[in-house]
């Protein structure tokens, strides 16, 4: 899966979790840029991403999911490692 593919799939995850199809993701986006991205929805994002990509984040990795770019990067690495 290319990085663009990952970002596309991740966008679908964000659309589902925030129930907002107008969200356009860019790597530098953080919780401050998206309405409703709080600690509660952050857990939802991680769980929904795990489901969509068929991966499991390690507890240590959770702390690095601070912005969209990191999110996509960790996912790509996990997909490559499979």
């Amino acid at each position, binding site marked *: 899966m290319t990085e663009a593919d990952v970002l596309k799939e991740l966008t679908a995850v964000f659309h589902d979790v925030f129930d907002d199809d107008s969200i356009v993701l860019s790597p530098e986006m953080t919780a401050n840029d998206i309405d409703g991205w709080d600690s509660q929805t952050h857990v*939802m994002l991680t769980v929904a991403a795990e489901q969509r990509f068929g991966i499991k984040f390690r507890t240590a990795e959770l702390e690095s999911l601070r912005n969209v770019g990191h999110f996509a990067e960790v996912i790509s690495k996990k997909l490559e490692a499979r």
Partner: protein
Amino acid sequence: MDQLLWLAQHPDLGAALSEAKRESDAIARLGMATRLAGYRRDFTHTTRLDRLASEGLGAIARGDCTAPELQPMRIALLSSHTVDHLVPSIRVAGLQRRLACSVYVAPYGMYRQALLMEDAELARFAPQLIVLALDARDAPLQLPLEASQAEVDAAISERIDELRLLWRRARERYAAQVVQQTIVPADPPLFGSFEALVPAAPFALIERLNAAIREAARDDGVLLLDLAWEAARGSYGDGLAEPVRWHQAKQLVSPNLAPLYGDQLARIAAASVGMSRKCLVLDLDNTLWGGVVGDDGVDGIKLGQGSPCGEAFLAFQRYAALLARRGIILAVCSKNDLSVAEAAFKHPEMALKRSDIAAFVANWEDKAGNLRRIASMLDIGLDSLVFVDDNPAERDIVRRELPEVAVPELPDDVADYPARVAAAGYFEAVSFTPDDATRGRNYALNAERKAAMSHATDMEGYLRGLEMVLTATPIGSAELARSTQLINKTNQFNLTTRRYSEAEVERIASDPRSVTLAIRLTDKFGDNGLISVLMARPDEAFPEDELLIDSWLMSCRVLGRQVEEAVLDVLASTAIQAGYKALIGEYRPTERNGMVAEHFARLGFTQRPAPADASSETTFWRLDLTHDTPSRHFIEVKA
């Protein structure tokens, strides 16, 4: 993990949700959400469904509008772990069970404060259910590993005393039904299989604590959300409590499994207001036995010992028979010739007998129409039926024609049918009384009574011939469970349709100024059990020597037998003894209780003006007790 497997699969739920979101009217969106909640869904779908419904649910909670097909339900969650992520799932599962849930979440970890101190916000919310969702990490029992069984028991008994105090406060302060979640073990075993032999080992401790919680709950009228048991049975797969979710967000239940958790709580909420299903309707060919009896003959069907397949069908029959023993009505709906279908019940290996089936419909007409017929034969609503059919096409048609009927998706293998029907939680109970155990028999007897009626030449002769004896007693501890059950599930013969928890019924019954009656009826065919409940009390809106009939309801099984006339006799004489001069009747119309619109007029009450604050549709009636009124029934009364 796959969950809610009994719900039908939507071809594209995500697209349907996006489409529904475009609807601008909040109540119309709520209606769409209610319909879509009936499909299999993961937690993201469920969260989106909740958003779709939230504005409409909010309007209902504020009383700005009502949705006739949804019953309001207020649930307070008091927890020692994070539960916010479970709330959407609870609300959506509520919708699927025709409840408009509002959910109040007490501040994290503050469950003791909410119950032991004044909590104005919780009081304003007026919960009907208070759920105590506790976990193993909350206030662990501080015991050294080498503690003796006696020390363990002492510590557990102290913890149970604390819980009972909380339960009592919940009942006294908020008149709410308490639901206690059992404790899910948090730690992996220390000793392996030896664990349970060490009294203070973590798993042994929790097991003992849960056993004590269950026993205390039974004594105190508290319901269980038995999460520990569900987890042990594997309902949640491996994933109920994921360590990473605990470390990340103090979540005991992983968001993935929130839909299942929500469903398990919603089914208890629905049961507490009498909205569990009552009747299991079974298809025959390839559902109760292998093969087609019309083609293969009674000797040719696969059933019973000797073949794995025959044993699997037998096991499903046995499960249905057990459900009947706990009071679930059984019916048959099959495309067959009636005589052929009935003949199959003479097969020597049948676990179900023809007499277990209260309504037996076998013909070549469409199943939706036949299910309607079954509901009317049994005097129950379509929303009381669960229809089990191995044929996906029949399931699909019935779902489309009769959305009120629950139609579980079935696994490919009949060996898995019992577990699937059980997992769907259609028949969640909040009580079990001796009357439940004999209900199936009662429905069968009713069929005989109907036959007797068609033989009797006149109504009076029929009623006299029944040799009915009515017993009326105040609602005491022995009648409390069954009376509350009847109060909460009777829809048709119910004058006010007020729902009360056991705690509330107990409070009304113990007030010396009120008159409560639990009414039983026997006849020459047998005991009908506790079939009617009446609760009357003085009310500020009326003079103090007039008695308001707050609730009057009756099982439809004994309709048309003048039971209400006999009950009025008992009520009138009890009220006169207590010094009352008149009875006030109240009729609050609902979608379902049209049959009693003229109830008070028929009994000789005259209509009187409604008090100022009453709803405009409610009618009020008055019966003067200072004149004798002759009774007109053929029932021997024992009060």
